[in-house]
């Protein structure tokens, strides 16, 4: 089969063709026509296979690429691919062969001469099957026609031996192809490995410092990926090569589990159920890979990768549903990136595991870049949010400080108010003391003087007596005023007691006996302070009237609790009893004003007052409504 120029290899799906064209276009743009159009490159797509294990069997015709692992019955030992080199190749200036993939240990013979040997036949075999191979053909060995290329491949189970399609032709055409393949397969892998390792370490450091497991899962996944990308190039086939190979297969599941948990944490769905699911997935993968390693069943690897693909698709759908249900931009981005990864993984799985295209390269290793972008986006988001939160916290702190300051100012104001009140109290006490020691003392002295004068000068005695009476009144009045300044709450009986204490001397001086009767049920009655003061004034007025006008010998004062309230009665056996018909207030102008005052005060506190004659004398009865006292 001979063709000029580059041809698509396998009958792939339209998606694969389309993707490959896109990739080629990109490469073409990048290389800007490195490969001359006229240079010769021919892809050989069939070979004659002879297995060393069955030397008697006839050569089998196989089409390339040939995944020997899947097509060879024994999958161990050596096999030779015999290929016919088109005659046109012999005519080129620098004939060459480009093998996109061949493995594991192989030799290239041209017309019976060994032109290239890679690896040695020993157990375990080195793993060369991931690197492209370029072989310059010595022109001296070429015959003008009928050249034959024999590629002897030594394979081992699970090491993916086989042969891709083989390109022969001019070096001008093949060298760029080789460089391109080398870039994609080898240099790209190292770049990915380096980037993943960097991101992995970075992720773990961030996780360690921030205590956020999301970065930890990402770091772990990246380190696994870095190792995987690097492990493709492990050509050192010593005794642990089988272990590396097994670990390589199994690490894919670990990577997927780590990435899955990372994505779930990003989407804030990393529940314990999700963890159990991924743990289960890892266990199943472990079982599959161990089965494959122990019994050499390649389909197990295919199943394992298919399971991985299913998990990736599941993740995509899950994240997409979150994005859809919650209209979450972040979840949508995650779903899109995981979807892309799943698509690439599906492509690899289909091409490599289902179609057994031995010449194809895996794309999946590059999708880690998508996840790195997601991670970078996440970091930027985190950083921005942290900055915002910091700014908010600062603002709240400032507001809190201002509020505290205001509170302090208020407390300071309150303190100042208290101090002012205390100053006022001190001033009140000072005034009280001055009244005690000054005015009060002078009054007392004046009364004493009047008393003395009263005893000596007969003509002035009546006048002095009146003066003394007036001074006595002043003193009682002053005492009542001082009592009213008392800030302590008193019950009515206590207030009346003070009144008695003040007025009693005057009553005694007038020859009047006061009969005091505060009923027990009314003894603890309380009134508002202003009401108490009015009641005291009324009582004082009543008692003064008795002293001045009644000419009584006994006055009864009674406080009692009645149904409708408190009742306070002052009853005297004065003039009225002796001259019942005469209105008592008529000849006494001063008393008239006094009675009006009493009525006025009673009205002010909502009390009812009754002033008038009584069978025993004259009565003043004050009734305080129950609502105003307790």
């Amino acid at each position, binding site marked *: 089969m001979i063709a000029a120029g580059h041809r698509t290899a396998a009958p792939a799906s339209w998606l694969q063709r389309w993707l490959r064209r896109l990739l080629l276009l990109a490469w073409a743009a990048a290389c800007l026509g490195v490969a001359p159009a006229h240079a010769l490159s021919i892809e050989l797509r069939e070979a004659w296979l002879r297995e060393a294990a069955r030397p008697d069997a006839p050569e089998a015709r196989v089409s390339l690429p040939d995944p020997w692992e899947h097509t060879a019955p024994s999958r161990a030992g050596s096999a030779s691919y015999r290929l016919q080199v088109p005659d046109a190749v012999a005519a080129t200036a620098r004939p060459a062969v480009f093998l996109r993939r061949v493995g594991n240990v192989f030799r290239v013979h041209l017309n019976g001469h060994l032109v290239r040997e890679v690896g040695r036949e020993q157990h375990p075999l080195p793993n060369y099957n991931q690197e492209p191979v370029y072989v310059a053909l010595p022109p001296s060995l070429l015959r003008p026609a009928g050249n034959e290329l024999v590629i002897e491949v030594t394979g081992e189970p699970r090491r993916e031996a086989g042969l891709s399609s083989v390109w022969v032709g001019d070096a001008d055409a093949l060298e760029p192809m080789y460089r391109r393949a080398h870039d994609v397969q080898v240099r790209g892998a190292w770049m990915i490995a380096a980037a993943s390792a960097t991101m992995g370490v970075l992720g773990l450091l961030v996780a360690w410092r921030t205590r956020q497991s999301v970065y930890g899962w990402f770091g772990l996944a990246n380190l696994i990926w870095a190792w995987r990308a690097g492990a493709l190039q492990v050509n050192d086939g010593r005794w642990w090569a089988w272990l590396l190979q097994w670990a390589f297969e199994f690490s894919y599941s670990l990577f997927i589990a780590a990435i899955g948990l990372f994505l779930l944490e990003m989407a804030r769905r990393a529940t314990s159920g999700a963890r159990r699911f991924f743990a289960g997935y890892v266990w199943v993968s472990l079982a599959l890979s161990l089965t494959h390693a122990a019994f050499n069943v390649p389909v197990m690897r295919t199943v394992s990768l298919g399971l991985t693909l299913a998990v990736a698709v599941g993740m995509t759908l899950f994240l997409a549903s979150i994005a859809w249900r919650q209209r979450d931009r972040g979840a949508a981005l995650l779903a899109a990136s995981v979807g892309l990864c799943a698509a690439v993984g599906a492509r690899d799985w289909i091409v490599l595991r289902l179609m057994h295209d031995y010449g194809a390269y895996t794309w999946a290793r590059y999708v880690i870049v998508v996840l790195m972008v997601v991670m970078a986006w996440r970091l930027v988001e985190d950083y921005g949010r942290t900055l915002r939160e910091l700014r908010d916290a600062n603002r709240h702190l400032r507001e809190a400080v201002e509020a505290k300051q205001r509170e302090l100012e208020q407390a300071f104001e309150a303190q100042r108010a208290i101090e002012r009140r205390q100053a006022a109290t001190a001033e009140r006490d000072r005034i009280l*003391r001055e009244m*005690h020691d000054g005015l009060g*003392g002078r009054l007392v002295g004046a009364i004493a003087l009047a008393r003395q004068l009263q005893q000596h000068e007969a003509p002035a005695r009546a006048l002095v007596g009146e003066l003394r009476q007036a001074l006595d009144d002043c003193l009682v009045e002053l005492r009542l005023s001082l009592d009213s300044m008392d800030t302590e709450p008193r019950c009515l009986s*206590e207030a009346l*007691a*003070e009144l008695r204490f003040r007025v009693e*001397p005057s009553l*005694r001086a007038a020859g009047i006996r006061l009969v005091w009767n505060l009923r027990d049920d009314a*003894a603890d009655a309380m009134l508002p302070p202003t009401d108490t003061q009015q009641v005291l004034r009324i009582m004082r007025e009543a008692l003064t009237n008795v002293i001045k006008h009644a000419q009584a010998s006994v006055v009864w004062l009674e406080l009692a609790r009645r149904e409708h309230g408190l009742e306070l009665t002052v009853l005297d056996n004065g003039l009225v009893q002796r001259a019942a018909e005469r209105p008592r207030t008529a000849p006494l102008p001063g008393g008239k004003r006094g009675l009006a005052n009493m009525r006025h005060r009673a009205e002010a506190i909502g009390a009812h007052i009754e002033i008038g004659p009584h069978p025993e004398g004259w009565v003043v009865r004050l009734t305080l409504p129950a609502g105003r006292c307790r």
Partner: protein
Amino acid sequence: MLTVYLVEDDPLLARHVLGAFQRASDVRCVGHAARLSQARDELPLFRPDVLLTDLGLPDGDAIDLIREFGCTDVAWRPNILVFSVFGDEVRVLEAIESGADGYFLKGCSDPELLDAVRGAARGESPISPGIARQVLRRLGAAPAHAAAGGARLSPAEQAVLRLVAQGYVTEEVGERLMMTAHTVATHVRAVYGKLQPARTEVLAGSVS
């Protein structure tokens, strides 16, 4: 003969009181001071039965004087009557706590003054409704305070004080509580004693 010592800075009032004492046959005023310092010097010499003293004096507070002669000397102690213009209960209570035996109001007639002095000499303690109210508040409703001083009001003392606070005079209190006026006075005296923690301690010490 009852001996009285007067501490009063107001000359008008002092003259009146001294006059009243002169007219009384059973009372003799042995000295009169207008200043604390003078009273301090003369009191131990004259050793009167009754000390009648004003509270505010030009060279200090008579409460100091009361404290000095009311508590410390157990051998000789005058009956101290605080002589004030009118019911300044807080100050009077302070005086009683310092050792005064009673409180007497200025501006009363001569017989009332003489009765008060005689009563004080007999160990009676005059009391006003305001003082009774303050004492009830202080000893009746504050067990912690009372416990600190080791003094609590007895039910009888409480009943007496309650009636006094309601305005009943000694005789009326006696009638209501079915006791003599003398018993009432004794209760009041006891209450005053309970107000004087320092004196209580001295007395307790002398007994034990």
